[in-house]
């Protein structure tokens, strides 16, 4: 049996754009283990964007609920409680900020609240059909409402406040008048965000010139907001299919946060995230100073490169999926365009680009399999007082179409061998923000550092826990080892951190990890699936797939890091501020528990954790840049965590200027190189970079980020102490 952990993709929310993004907000992975018990039908599945019938959706929901009832770890029943949660989930997916539906809509649909799941299980009722129609009407009304609001000047000076809650507790508007009022605030907020506010002191004349931009900003805002609506109505896979997907997931996520439904094409996207190769168009994006979206890099040998029609610097004006409507990207942010490209599982994309000579051209690209450079293991030498090896592992990737082929653990081993050729004295393995991936790879990776013995306990629904081991005896690296983690290190990352910690093999440094100790398998959406009896049919791609939590894993001690996360041996200041994203914050997380099982394992002598922590704390206390960044982040939190935004130009300018100042200071300290170590490439990698410009550029960015990584700098100090400890022993 092959065990695979995998990445989570959250259900898309409609209105997820109200807040400014935090600068240090790291890409969110929320991952899960997947054990592919079945033959994968990867990359051979054709995309079906034709809207399915309500009957088919009803059948899919029935299949999924039967499958989950029979196989999900939690053994939940399809009952009234599940119906109520699903009903609430569904409305929150459709309208997370409660600005599309009216209170009376919910009253009309309240009849389904107590029996939504049971009806789906019995294939009864027209809930999905009815709400699909109504939601479309409401979206179209909202679209018109935006036009109406944006047809008049936005009164930027007028005092107003926008209150919203992040936990969906805000009530729905009772009247269209109230709804319009909310939208006026939302549009004003967006318009204020689009205003180009500098750090200058705002004299009256400056304020006047700012106000002169109001019509242009209003137009940009209108396009922006309407684009969000139109993106839902013109989903690449079809509007009805999109709603059905949310409907299915409103049930699935009641079982636990890592269980969900997806289509065959989404399955491919999902697998791409933890592969070394991914289906892609082969270009990277960046923002120009004029806020246009340009092509920053073409991946050699990728579709964009091979087209010979796109060049670095081309500005993207529009995009179109297959034969759908074109999407105008005027005013779109880099984040928004990246999201659009990522969310679609369509293989054909037509871009309208503006070339350097000002001429617009249309280019059609078809996705192809290319190396995902950003997913790969990277190794460098940190040269300071000592020569330390550093390896960054962004995900536990594997070859999905051939899971028996060596994956990321093999790449880590190769990097270690390259680094050992440079006689490193210690090794730092960085799995910060690594959301997991293949469980087999996690076990193989632990095996690099642990000779032999149990690595974790694995428990399926209703079964006794069993011991999981490394496939190979022996080690590749025996020297001092530090593992860097943060609150976004999840799943497989937590497995390896916990194991190395229990064996006293590595010092774990950073912040408490994500807190997910459950695993998932991708099952075809079929009622005859029975994981406990190993009966998994070949799936019909049109029925979709269900990522299902079927097991939990425990430390060799029998305890679990579920919810709590792995607690590092040495704590570092939290510069990620992603605690809101942790497993413990999810309503349907599985509980933390433990198992009793006699496990024979031989830990190494304990590491001097206390002394290393004291030394680190002293260094952190004396590190002015680190302290300043922490305090700047606290200040940013003060602004970002406010539930009330003051919506008048003067107040907004003040807040924006403060935020800009903080961000600039953070950026400044973020850009200043450390004086503790320099970053060197191994000889082998240097030879690759001589010829491979793309890899070289990616690597340059990577090494630059390491030079200014304050937490890495401190970890380097901890490693120095650890090496000295080993020498004295």
């Amino acid at each position, binding site marked *: 049996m092959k065990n695979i952990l995998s990445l989570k993709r959250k259900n898309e929310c409609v209105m997820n754009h109200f807040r400014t993004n935090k600068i240090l907000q790291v890409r969110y992975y929320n991952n899960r283990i997947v054990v592919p018990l079945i033959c994968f039908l990867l990359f051979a599945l054709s995309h079906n964007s034709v809207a399915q019938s309500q009957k088919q959706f009803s059948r899919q929901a029935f299949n999924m609920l039967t499958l989950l009832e029979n196989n999900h770890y939690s053994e939940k029943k399809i009952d009234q409680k599940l119906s109520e949660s699903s009903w609430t989930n569904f409305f929150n997916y459709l309208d997370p900020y409660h600005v599309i539906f009216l209170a009376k809509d919910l009253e009309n649909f309240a009849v389904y609240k107590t029996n939504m799941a049971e009806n789906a299980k019995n294939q009864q009722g027209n809930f999905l059909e009815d709400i699909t129609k109504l939601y479309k009407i409401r979206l179209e009304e909202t679209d018109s409402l935006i036009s109406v609001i944006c047809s008049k000047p936005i009164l930027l000076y007028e005092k107003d406040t926008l209150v919203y809650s992040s936990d969906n507790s805000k009530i729905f508007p009772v009247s269209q008048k109230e709804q319009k009022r909310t939208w006026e605030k939302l549009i004003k907020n967006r318009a204020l965000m689009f205003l180009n506010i500098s750090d200058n002191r705002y004299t009256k004349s400056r304020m006047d010139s700012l106000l002169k931009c109001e019509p242009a900003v209003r137009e940009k805002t209108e396009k922006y907001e309407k684009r969000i609506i139109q993106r839902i109505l013109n989903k690449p896979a079809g509007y009805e299919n999109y709603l059905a997907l949310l409907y299915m997931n409103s049930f699935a996520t009641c079982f636990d946060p890592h269980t969900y439904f997806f289509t065959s094409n989404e399955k491919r996207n999902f697998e791409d995230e933890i592969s070394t190769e991914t289906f892609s168009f082969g270009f990277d994006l960046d923002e120009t100073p004029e806020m246009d979206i340009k092509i920053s890099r073409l991946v*050699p040998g990728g579709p964009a490169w091979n087209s010979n029609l796109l060049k670095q610097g081309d500005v993207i004006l529009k995009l179109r999926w297959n034969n759908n409507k074109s999407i105008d990207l005027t005013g779109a942010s880099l984040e928004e365009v990246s999201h659009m490209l990522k969310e679609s599982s369509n293989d054909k994309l037509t871009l309208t680009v503006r070339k350097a000579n000002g001429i617009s051209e249309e280019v059609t690209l078809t996705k192809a399999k290319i190396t995902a450079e950003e997913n790969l293991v990277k190794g460098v030498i940190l040269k300071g007082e000592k020569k330390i090896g550093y390896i960054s592992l962004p995900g536990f990737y594997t070859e999905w179409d051939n899971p028996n082929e060596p994956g990321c653990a093999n790449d880590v081993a*190769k990097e270690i061998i390259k680094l050992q050729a440079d006689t490193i004295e210690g090794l730092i393995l960085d799995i910060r923000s690594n959301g997991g991936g293949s469980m087999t790879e996690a076990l193989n990776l632990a095996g690099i550092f642990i000779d032999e013995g149990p690595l974790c306990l694995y428990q399926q629904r209703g079964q006794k826990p069993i011991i999981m081991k490394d*496939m*190979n005896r*022996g080690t*590749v690296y025996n020297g001092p080892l530090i593992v860097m983690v943060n609150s976004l290190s999840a799943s497989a990352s937590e497995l390896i951190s916990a194991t190395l910690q229990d064996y006293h093999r590595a010092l774990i440094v950073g912040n408490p990890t994500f807190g997910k100790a459950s695993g998932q398998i991708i099952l075809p959406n079929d009622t005859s699936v029975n994981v406990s009896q190993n009966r998994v049919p070949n799936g019909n791609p049109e029925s979709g797939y269900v990522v299902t939590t079927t097991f939990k894993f425990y430390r060799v001690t029998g305890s679990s890091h579920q919810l709590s996360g792995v607690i590092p041996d040495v704590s570092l200041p939290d510069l990620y501020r992603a605690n809101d994203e942790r497993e413990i914050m999810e309503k349907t997380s599985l509980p933390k528990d433990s198992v009793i099982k006699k496990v024979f394992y031989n830990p190494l002598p304990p590491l001097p954790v206390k002394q290393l922590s004291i030394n680190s704390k002293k260094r952190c206390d004396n590190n002015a840049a680190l302290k300043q960044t922490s305090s700047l982040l606290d200040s940013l939190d003060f602004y970002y965590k406010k539930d009330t935004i003051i919506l008048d130009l003067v107040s907004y300018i003040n807040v924006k200027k403060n935020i800009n100042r903080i961000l600039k200071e953070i950026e400044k300290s973020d850009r200043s190189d450390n004086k503790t170590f320099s970053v060197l490439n191994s000889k082998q990698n240097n*030879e*690759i970079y001589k010829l491979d410009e793309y*890899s070289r550029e990616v690597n340059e960015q990577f090494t630059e980020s390491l030079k200014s990584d304050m937490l890495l700098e401190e970890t380097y100090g901890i490693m120095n102490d650890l090496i000295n400890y080993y020498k004295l022993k």
Partner: protein
Amino acid sequence: MKNILFITLLLLCTFGVYSQDANKASEYMSIMGNKHTEIMENVWDYTSSVAHGKSARKVEKRRKEVIKSVEDAQKTIGKMDPFNNDASFRDSVLSYLNISHIVLTENYSKIVDMEAVAEQSYDDMEAYLLAQKLANEKLDVAENMMVQEQKSFAAANNIKLIESNDQLSRNMKKASEVINYYNKVYLIFFKSNKQEVYLMEAMSKSDVNAIEQNRGVLSKFSTEGLSMMDTLKSYHGDISMSTATKQMLKFYKEESEVKLKTLANYFIEKEKFDKIKVAFDSKSQSSRTKSDVDNFNNAVNALNKASADYNSINDALNKNRTELINNWNNVAQAFLDKNIPKNKK
């Protein structure tokens, strides 16, 4: 390679009986003694066929005969009544026969917690050996109990037990000694041999992680094996097994510590070349600089050299390994042939 672990079980203790007067007790005991002799004769046939290079078909036939004779004994003794209402001796013999049957048929799960065995073992072979070891320990306990009961029974019924010294007993005793030595040497050899198989598998998958881990373990096992062979030395002056095994272990040690030490470099060199080739191929001929071409050519040369080194080391290792393993097999067969008496039957 002769990888059969000989059956070392079964009664070396004797049922030879001498009684002042032939009474019911000695008759009772003799029934068991006769059954035991039948089993021993079959065991000897089996041992001899293995030791003297009989065909696999014949060896298997003999093994089945041993099992059948144990089953016959179980049937016959199972039907016997307790002696003077005391079933302890009979039951101890039955218990011993039952466990013997389990060990012979390798049906270990009946007496060993196989789940615990699997969890404590690294692989299937280690689990098999551990299960066999644990089963044999149970057999030892049953045997001791049976010998004890036999003595008590004899004492209670005025029977004098005597050590049997017929040809069969002498042959069995000698064979047992030889087999004991052979098994110890074989296990030392086998540990490294099996480890080398894992290394080869890793090489065939180009799995550098597994190659490096298994290479390190092969070095450890072969070093440990050599040091264990120093304590085993010869069998009554016969150093043939010891010499062949040491040669094999030295080969494994050199293979893991010297010959294949840089094996991983080949795979790293290959990966580097593959990346460079993609970058090189993606440039049009006109846009390639002299430096690009030079770098590409350097990478080609480096890979060619690494391939040539890899192939020549591999060829030499394969040749040497084949010779040594053939030698080990021949020596092992000759050793058994020479030291285990021939079946004169």
